[in-house]
């Protein structure tokens, strides 16, 4: 669908569906996983039908996530390659948080923060998947040694904390930077939003329209 005048297309319908499917599964994984993380959070297992059901469902949701995240990775990895201006942007994180955009380098499709979210999610999900396989008692209980399982437990819990922290930052950025959410709900952003936050990307997109 052609975007309305004054707006720029940012995500295709496929990318949006892929993102939200991934988001739903990731949130369900976090909720069921946190129920095993700390006694104070065990009540969350009730959302899945109790502790036993949470234990049964959690790993299968993890398998589903690997596919939905692979979709996101294939779609977005090339836009998330780190470059010099990203380091510059990150060094001026104070200006970012104070919304002093005039002090920041022009940003392409993604800024350094978004790229960090992308790569931390990638590394974190790979670590969770690998360690999750080792912890999956009903499927791989006889495959791995007890020491391997202990290491996997530490890796799994640590990676989960990192991922949830990254997710909080991702969510907050979307709430704080007004006009961002529509990129993932409607697929397009306003020209003004693109000018303010992703000027280099806007110029590239505008130049494409010239063709």
């Amino acid at each position, binding site marked *: 669908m052609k975007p309305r005048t*004054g707006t720029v297309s940012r995500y295709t319908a496929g990318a949006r569906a892929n993102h939200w499917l991934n988001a739903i599964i990731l949130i369900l994984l976090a909720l069921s996983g946190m129920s095993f993380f700390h006694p104070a959070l065990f009540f969350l297992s009730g959302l899945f039908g109790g*502790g036993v059901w949470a234990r049964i469902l959690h790993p299968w949701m993890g398998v589903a996530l690997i596919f939905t995240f692979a979709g996101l990775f294939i779609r977005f990895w090339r836009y998330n390659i780190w470059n010099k201006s990203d380091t510059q942007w990150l060094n001026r994180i104070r200006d970012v948080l104070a919304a002093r955009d005039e002090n920041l380098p022009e940003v392409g499709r993604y800024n350094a923060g978004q790229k960090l979210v992308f790569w931390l999610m990638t590394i974190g999900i790979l670590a969770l998947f690998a360690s999750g396989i080792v912890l999956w*008692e009903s499927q791989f*209980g006889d495959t791995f040694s007890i020491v391997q399982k*202990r290491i996997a437990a530490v890796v799994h819990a640590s990676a989960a904390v990192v991922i*949830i922290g990254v997710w909080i930052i991702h969510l907050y950025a979307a709430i704080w930077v007004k006009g961002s959410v529509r990129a993932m709900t409607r697929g397009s952003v306003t020209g003004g939003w693109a000018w*303010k936050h992703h000027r280099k990307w806007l110029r590239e997109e505008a*130049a494409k329209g010239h063709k």
Partner: protein
Amino acid sequence: MATQQSLDIKRSSATTTPQPSVRESVEVAKLIDVSRCIGCKACQAACLEWNDLREEVGFNTGVYENPHDLSENSWTLMRYSEVEEDDGHLEWLIRKDGCMHCEDPGCLKACPAPGAIVQYSNGIVDFISENCIGCGYCVKGCPFNIPRISKNDRKAYKCTLCSDRVAVGQGPACVKACPTQAISFGTKEDMTEWAGHRIADLKERGYENAGLYDPQGVGGTHVMYVLKHADRPEIYSNLPKDPHISSLVEAWKGWPKPVALAGLGLTALLGFFHYVTAGPNEVDEDDEDKGKRTLEQNGR
């Protein structure tokens, strides 16, 4: 959820508040005198019988162990090892393996399900199976490789020290069945004292390294061994010399967890306060104009 009303619970898995513990009972212990064991497996049979369990009929691979390992049905197992000493003589060592009922139980520390593993004030560590979610964390927590997960119901099983019998003043089934009184049961104090006599006797007979196995790395155990070679417990089918809860399990289940949770909560809180102090990051008219112009210049 079924309840196991008891007023003498010392510890309960995945529970951070005090347990009903007004009733305090004396600490008990099972003492296994390896030097008196003849390896008859009466204890194994008694365990299956009292607990009404059946082990699958196995196969002979040329060793005495039968079955080959602990299982969800076999909560105790005679392990046999042949050790050739430096002077050339052969020692045939037999050890009754099973849950050691640690004072500081690794299984209980690792368990994420509230009340699935409890420790009574008498020291017995018990699995409350209806609360078990089948995750297998107890297997990772145990320093002795004892719990087994059933392939059928996915619950964890191990020796209960016959907590049901002990509760009504009976000794464990294995103790009753032992024909040589190699296994005895009583208060931990009495058992330690009794072990002292046995050790003195063994020393008199030339076993100068005879001693009691009550490893302090796990706070002591409520199943203890009298070993002829207490200086080398590992020769008894890999009985660990200095067992303790793995530092990996301590890291996984210890202070880093509440700290991590607090860190996550703080991150969310920081976000909230950033929003209410710095305000939303909004696009203004000027940005919209410039954005529009950029698009128009290029014929969009």
